């Protein structure tokens, strides 16, 4: 079965990345053989809609389960339509997370666990001192 996990680097020995839409890498893993393919996230610096685009990428690659730290409502909606099962709250080394998954120790959440734009850098408007807008280096086109 093909699953995907978000990772900070391109190998199974890298950490699970907490952000789904803006993770540096996705690892597509065959759970039977543990063979995997690492792809760089093309949406890491997207202006907006990174979660949607990334979720579409999972669906296009016929992934059955997605393992990640946090996932927002937009990506979750795409997963719902695509029939991709979502597991959030995953941490630690990617390989160990996959082993836990295979052992049945991880539970499908079926829904988002964070709000929109949760993983987007600085966040919105803390007080009067500038820093408004959606955080790190985003050239906002709204």
């Amino acid at each position, binding site marked *: 079965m093909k699953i995907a996990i978000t990772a900070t680097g391109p190998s199974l020995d890298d950490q699970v990345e907490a952000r789904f839409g803006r993770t540096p890498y996705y690892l597509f893993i065959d759970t039977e053989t543990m063979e995997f393919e690492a792809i760089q996230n093309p949406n890491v610096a997207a202006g*907006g809609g990174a979660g*949607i685009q990334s979720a579409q990428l999972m*669906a296009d690659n016929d992934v059955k389960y997605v393992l990640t730290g946090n996932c927002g409502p937009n990506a979750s909606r*795409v997963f719902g339509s*695509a029939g991709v099962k979502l597991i959030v709250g995953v941490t630690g080394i990617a390989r160990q997370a996959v082993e836990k998954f295979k052992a049945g120790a991880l539970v499908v959440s079926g829904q988002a666990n964070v709000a*929109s734009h949760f993983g987007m850098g600085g966040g919105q*408007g803390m007080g009067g*001192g500038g820093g408004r807008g959606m955080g790190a280096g985003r050239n906002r086109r*709204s």
Partner: protein
Amino acid sequence: MKLAIASGKGGTGKTTIATNLALTLDDKGMEVQLLDCDVEEPNCHIFLKPKIESTAPVTVLIPKVIEEKCTGCGVCAEVCEYSAIAVIKGKVLIFPELCHGCGACKLFCPENAFIEVPREVGIIEEGKASGISFTHGFLNIGELMSPAVIDEVKKAAGDKEIVILDSPPGTSCPVIAAVKDADFVLLVTEPTPFGLNDLELAVGMARELKLPFAVAINRSDVGNEDVKEYCRREKIEIVLEIPNDRRIAEAYSRGEMVIHALPEYQKTFETCWEKIIDLHQNMMQAEQQEKTATES
């Protein structure tokens, strides 16, 4: 004269200047309109305390798919610049809060399967504050499309002699939406490294938009001289300096107008306005001369 009060950095004093300048000119018997374009955090009303006379919703058009016509080809998702559409297993998913209402999906759909429906993203309110015609907008919580609400606030601009726009901070889309058709932009900053950095960005924006501008320095007697040196180097006029006066902060924290609590500042705002008018006229004349020169 349409004057936009803007700044790269937040919390520099845009609203303080916009409201006190508006009231100073109103007190002098001029016809003034104030448009609070900071629709994510409008706050001019806290100080001017306008009497709101009308409220209207702001809507944007978003696509709706007619499922019988849709073949799930995915063109709409491909052309959407903002990832507001995904096509999963032949089914169109629309994410309204990401939609900019550009209409590309409807335009490019080979099956003509889209219609557009209005969606409320905020409201605008209009009223009066002493003699000032007042309009502000509120973007609904969780919404991103502030330019739609800003545009609606700006549509309220009438034929008043003076229109003052209080812009949101920064240099991104909402700011562009607020300042783009102003006659003159006043860039507010403070004499700190942050203030200078963000002023340089704001100057870049004003130049890109070919808008005449000048600088106001708030809390001008703190920090360092770098902002002034930068303005000298770049030949940018400083038309207003407000000192770091604790009494201003106290009045502000009570929601009071500076010129009411400290009438001596009325003169400061009057002088600022005169300088802006002079500068604007000079710039217009220079432009006119340039035009005649190139024509002949």
